[in-house]
């Protein structure tokens, strides 16, 4: 393991809890969040009383639309039986990451020492309308030209293949399918994952078309679920656990809501800026990251992450994916290899296989890293020794991105 210089933590995660992701027919969204929150509080080793929590930061995208409920703080005050400050952040699929970003600001400001961060979504209640609902994260002109989210990412994918695989290299298309296979493989040991079954490339290519060239198995699913974290100031971390996971970098960047209006169709500027800033904040490079949670809402986005984050050069992400998969000889996690850099992405299955209850996803990514860095990820635990993890959560097609870096040992 590379040694990194002494890092100054911003906050620490001392507890984490989540629900299973999937079609959770029998649960209301606020109950799912309460379940995750109670699990998170219960997981704190040295004990945490509810009265210790000074504020709550929630993230949810479609709560009002899917369940016709508003005022999340009011519902959560009821569920948790508390009267503390609470806020809900809506940033589409980036809601969870943004909620954590805001929680970090609350702690960094010195206002709070102990906060609860929660992300949740209940999407399956609107199965017939969810494709329309999700376009709330797009520009209305995109909706009015018939676009769906899959269609927007498919447009990125088409242009990416055209520009970087010269439109005819079948290995690029195969790489885009292999990402789904890899993430399903990673989810096999994840007891909470929505899908725990292996996929073959053939399965992906034979799945129904959604938006050419995206097929069903290139897509993350429609999911219900909730995740919660107990986040404390660094000074308080050891009071609650002997093994806190420190947040050492927390950055957010935004960009035009419309894909058309951005600098690039084959890259996410907000990811690039947030990642640049978080690496600068921590004086790290992508080579220092051992495990990453990438926002693989569609498989193309995982390739864009590799490039936008600087893990590899623009246009080479698909080759890294293809070559890494082809040369992999092991049986568990499939790392991406770029020269002397090695990165395991989406160790628990990512959005693709673990599930994507959109507001929960950004928090789930931190949950996964928290567990991985503590060696508590169960069947999904990466065999290598891990110390640094990165979480990448975006909203819409890149209107917002938050990136967090977590470490187990500060030195």
């Amino acid at each position, binding site marked *: 393991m590379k040694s990194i210089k002494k890092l100054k933590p911003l906050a620490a995660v001392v507890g984490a809890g989540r629900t299973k992701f999937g079609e959770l027919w029998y649960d209301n969204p606020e109950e799912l969040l309460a379940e995750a929150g109670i699990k998170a509080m219960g997981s704190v080793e040295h004990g945490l009383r509810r009265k210790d929590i000074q504020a709550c930061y929630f993230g949810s995208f479609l709560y009002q639309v899917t369940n016709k409920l508003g005022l999340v703080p009011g519902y959560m005050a009821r569920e948790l039986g508390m009267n503390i400050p609470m806020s809900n952040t809506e940033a589409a699929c980036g809601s969870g990451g943004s909620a954590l970003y805001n929680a970090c600001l609350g702690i960094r400001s010195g206002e709070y020492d102990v906060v609860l961060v929660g992300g949740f979504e209940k999407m399956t209640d609107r199965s017939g309308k969810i494709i329309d609902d999700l376009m709330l994260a797009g520009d209305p002109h995109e909706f009015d030209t018939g676009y*769906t989210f899959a269609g927007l990412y*498919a447009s990125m994918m088409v242009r990416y293949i*055209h520009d970087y695989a010269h439109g005819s290299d079948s290995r690029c298309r195969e790489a885009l399918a292999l990402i789904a296979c890899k993430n399903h493989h990673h989810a096999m040991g994840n007891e909470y994952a929505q899908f725990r079954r292996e996929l073959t490339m053939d399965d992906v290519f034979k799945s129904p078309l959604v938006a050419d060239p995206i097929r069903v198995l290139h897509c993350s699913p429609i999911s219900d679920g909730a995740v919660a974290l107990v986040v404390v100031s660094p000074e308080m971390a050891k009071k609650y656990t002997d093994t806190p996971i420190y947040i050492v970098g927390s950055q957010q960047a935004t960009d035009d809501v419309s894909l058309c209006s951005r600098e690039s*169709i084959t890259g996410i500027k907000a990811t690039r800026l947030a990642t640049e800033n978080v690496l600068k904040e921590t004086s790290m490079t992508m080579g220092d990251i051992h495990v990453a949670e990438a926002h693989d809402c569609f498989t193309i986005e995982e390739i864009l992450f590799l490039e936008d984050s600087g893990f590899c050069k623009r246009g080479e992400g698909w080759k890294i994916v293809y070559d890494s998969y082809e040369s992999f000889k092991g049986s568990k996690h499939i790392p991406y290899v770029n020269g002397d850099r090695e990165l395991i992405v989406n160790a628990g299955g990512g959005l693709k296989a673990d599930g994507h209850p959109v507001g929960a996803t950004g928090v789930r990514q931190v949950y996964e890293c928290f567990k991985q860095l503590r060696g508590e990820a169960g069947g999904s635990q990466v065999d290598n020794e891990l110390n640094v993890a990165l979480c990448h959560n975006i909203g819409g097609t890149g209107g917002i991105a938050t990136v967090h870096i977590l470490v187990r040992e500060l030195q």
Partner: protein
Amino acid sequence: MSEPITRRKILVDYRIRAAICENCGRVYFPPKSFCDVEGRESKMRPTDYFYEKGTFLTGSVIRVPTNKFSYLKSYLSGIIHFQNDDLKVPSRITDYVPPSEEIDVSEFIGRAVVPRFRKTYENGASGLIYYSSLNFSFEDDYYPFQEYKLIKPSSKSENRDKPGIVGYGVYIPKFRIKNEAPGVPGVKERSLPFADEDTTTFAVEAGKRALIHSAIDCQWVKKCFVGSESAPYAVNPSMSTVSQVLELGEKYEGGFFSGGIDSQFACKAATDLFIDAAALVAYPTFGGEYVMVIGADNSQAARGDPLDYTVGAGGTAFIFGKRDVIATLDCYVPYTSDTPDFYRRDGEEYPKHGGRFTGIPAYFKHVGTAMKAALKMCNFTPKDIQYVVNHAPNAKFPYQVAVEAGFDREQIEPGLVVRYIGNLYSGSCPTALAAVLDIAEPGDKILMTSYGSGAGSDAYIFTVTEAIEKKRERSITVKEQIDNTHRQYVDYSTYRRWKEGE
């Protein structure tokens, strides 16, 4: 979408309106009040791309659409690049039906596209209908690109005291159905709308072409009439949509100093207003230079009705004025009686008709009387007329009534476009007149007689002028549209689905 939101979107979407920073040239869609780079130094100017040509940058065939677009089943959406200003906008590619198997969308990259005014979706059967020009078709397909270039009108005209047609535009949709039913008199194939078209979109496209053909400034069109019997709204005019899209009249705070109405008189809803248009431009206090008259219909017919084998879709727009007239309006004879041969009660979906009663006592009586009276008024015999154009519910009636009046095949045939596009109802006679103007020579006289059930006919005699020659290069002729090799045939079930939403 609420009515206020719709109105705000109309101001942007109908013209693809953007804002350009005059300092640095950056363009913003939708428009914004300052430039991201120039900040307080910004100098923003509104601009639009309604008459521009773009290229396809990327896209996807949407196989699982939102509920709002499920009526289209699957379609191609994409990002369009207007290269001159480096502007990208989202789009839907219209008039394109993707195959059921996966396609390589990258093959479309770089192809030129032309904006089209189409429906986006409807808010149910009783709600608003939304339109936009963020729909494009490929330039090398059925719908060509035409530049809208203004030409300063001549200050004097030989026919200054005699108004007439200054320009015209014909829009016939890309799709056709072949007539295989026996007993349809002479109608070989018919045009039909794509699923996102209706009478209002036909009217806009025809009007757009008329402006391009005339090369006049749209702000001097002070009145617009849209004649139709298939307007998408019972109350809420197509005319105001046409005016908003084409910017007819002088602009003022999102509206225009112009007026007009939708008119209804079965198939003569538009031609009835030719004389009114000509009269207006000659009226000293009118205050405008031009009047636009559009006849457009998605001609209605119940499934299996004999009409279901003759109806077509499309429209034609004429611009009337006094300068640079291509055909003077020399004679007008209306003839009207209360003859209930064809009707549709309010709230009913399809018209009913009196079968054989629509012939001799209705069509032949009114058309024959008006055309003969027009000839008599001008002291003309059929030999003085080069082309005769009659309303065409089929190919037999207009031919027979003309022959009975003494005309021969050469005078009748050029106007019998019903054979290839079907009966366009309010657009029938105007489109046939356009087909004749496409080939007429200066000095030619054209006798046009419309027919509207209920019933009435308007007979007009036009004289073609020298000005027609210079404008030909800007027209897309009716024959070009009839013969277009990119026209696409559909089966009966698709025809009914697209035409009637069945």
